[in-house]
């Protein structure tokens, strides 16, 4: 194996089935092969300033959301370890940030962490949903630079 090759993989996830499939794909493909490390990333979109009636409600929402995210990330982490990844080679990361574009936020995380491969699931949006709301995986494919992007369907 060429030691110069970056074998760090960033898997951007949420609670959807397509994210689970993406994690499973990485687990099946690379589990048990030494030298790879994976980080499971979930970006928490900062809610708009008045999405909640008061700051307490927002904090309550955030704490609950964070708890669910931690559980989700731990679940995915176990999937990778169960497939043969060394426990120390799997990390999790979640960050709360202002996110007009989730794809750009994920790419920004990748840039700051210097992962060579970015993995995302594809939701399988209908044409009209993609038109109205945009596609995160589609945009990542379009704007990612200096890394490989795996889109798992």
């Amino acid at each position, binding site marked *: 194996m060429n030691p110069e090759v970056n074998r760090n993989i960033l898997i951007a996830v949420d609670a959807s089935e397509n994210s689970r499939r993406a994690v499973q794909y990485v687990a099946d493909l690379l589990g048990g092969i030494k030298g790879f490390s994976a980080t499971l990333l979930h970006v928490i*979109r900062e*809610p*708009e*300033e*008045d*999405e909640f*009636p008061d700051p307490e409600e927002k904090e309550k929402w955030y704490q609950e959301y964070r708890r669910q995210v931690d559980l989700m990330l731990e679940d995915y982490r176990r999937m990778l370890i169960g497939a043969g990844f060394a426990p120390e080679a799997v990390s999790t990361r979640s960050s709360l940030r202002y996110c*007009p*574009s*989730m*794809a750009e936020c994920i790419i920004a995380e990748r840039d700051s962490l210097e992962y060579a491969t970015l993995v995302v699931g594809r939701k399988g949006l209908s*044409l*009209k*949903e*993609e*038109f*109205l*709301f*945009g*596609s*995160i995986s*589609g*945009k990542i494919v379009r704007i990612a630079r200096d890394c490989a992007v795996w889109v798992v369907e």
Partner: protein
Amino acid sequence: MRENFSQESLHQLAAHWAPSQNKNHPFRIYHDTSDFFQIEYGDIVVLNDKAYLVRHNAKEGRFGLDDEVKFWVKRAIDLSNGETKFIKLVFYENFIARIGDISFECFRSPVKEARILNLIGHHPNFMHGFSVPDDQGNVVRILDVIFGLTLADHIWALAARMDHETYFYQYFPEILDKYIECVEAIRFLHEYGEKHGDIRRDHLLVDRDSGQYRWIDFDYNFRHRENIYGYDLFGLGNVLMFLAGMGDALVPYIKTTDLKLYGELNDNDTNIVFNNRVANLIKIYPYIPKNLNRILMHFSKSANVFYDHTTQLLEDLYEFKSCFPGKEVRNEP
């Protein structure tokens, strides 16, 4: 220190600006507007030391539901100068919006509307106003009244008087110019990271004084997914389709009036979301230039490339405009 209006002083002010007001009417005075259902005709709302005399609730005609009362929007008189204003009170509402068969969660955002009012200042293509907190910190918006028809009513009024070809060559060029101004206005919002949130042809008013089209109602909000501006762009496309077609070109109507044309239409000719509206207008009106029709087809079921940003739509509109029209143009009535 907070201004305390006496009944006597209020009656003096009201007598000046609203002489029809009953002189013996005991004013109920609200500094806290949380319970907007309670605030009725003849009540006083005091905001930022100004007294507003409430006349009635605003109404909105919308897709057949004419005169839907908006209890949180009061038409009122500013008793300091007699100006009529809309006072938009805080109404937190979460609801599921449905567009075709797609649904998503929306909420009313007074703070967003206040932010946008502050951002646009006196921009000619938006409603104007400012926000002020009431005693409970509710973000109340005080809006100037725009006199004029909705763009939808304006176009339907033209449609009642002429055929499409006359409209298209004689009136549409000027309408297009004004529409482009409105797209520029939305681009301005987007450049500041704001979305309108509910772009529809009845959220554009034709200002009777200036003749300009002006966006209203910016308080709709939703947790966007990837493209923060996608829904606004969809709205802009629908408005353009409506303007170019002098109304909606409805498939069921064509089916009953022109079977030959109906036979020539297929699924890909329709609006990407509203499948009963024809986007491929050139099939109905063959004189529509191809470069305009191409823009419309970005909003059709056959589209495989979408506009991501208003700048892309504007580029295509300017390109079309540069070679249109060819015939005599009349000013809009």
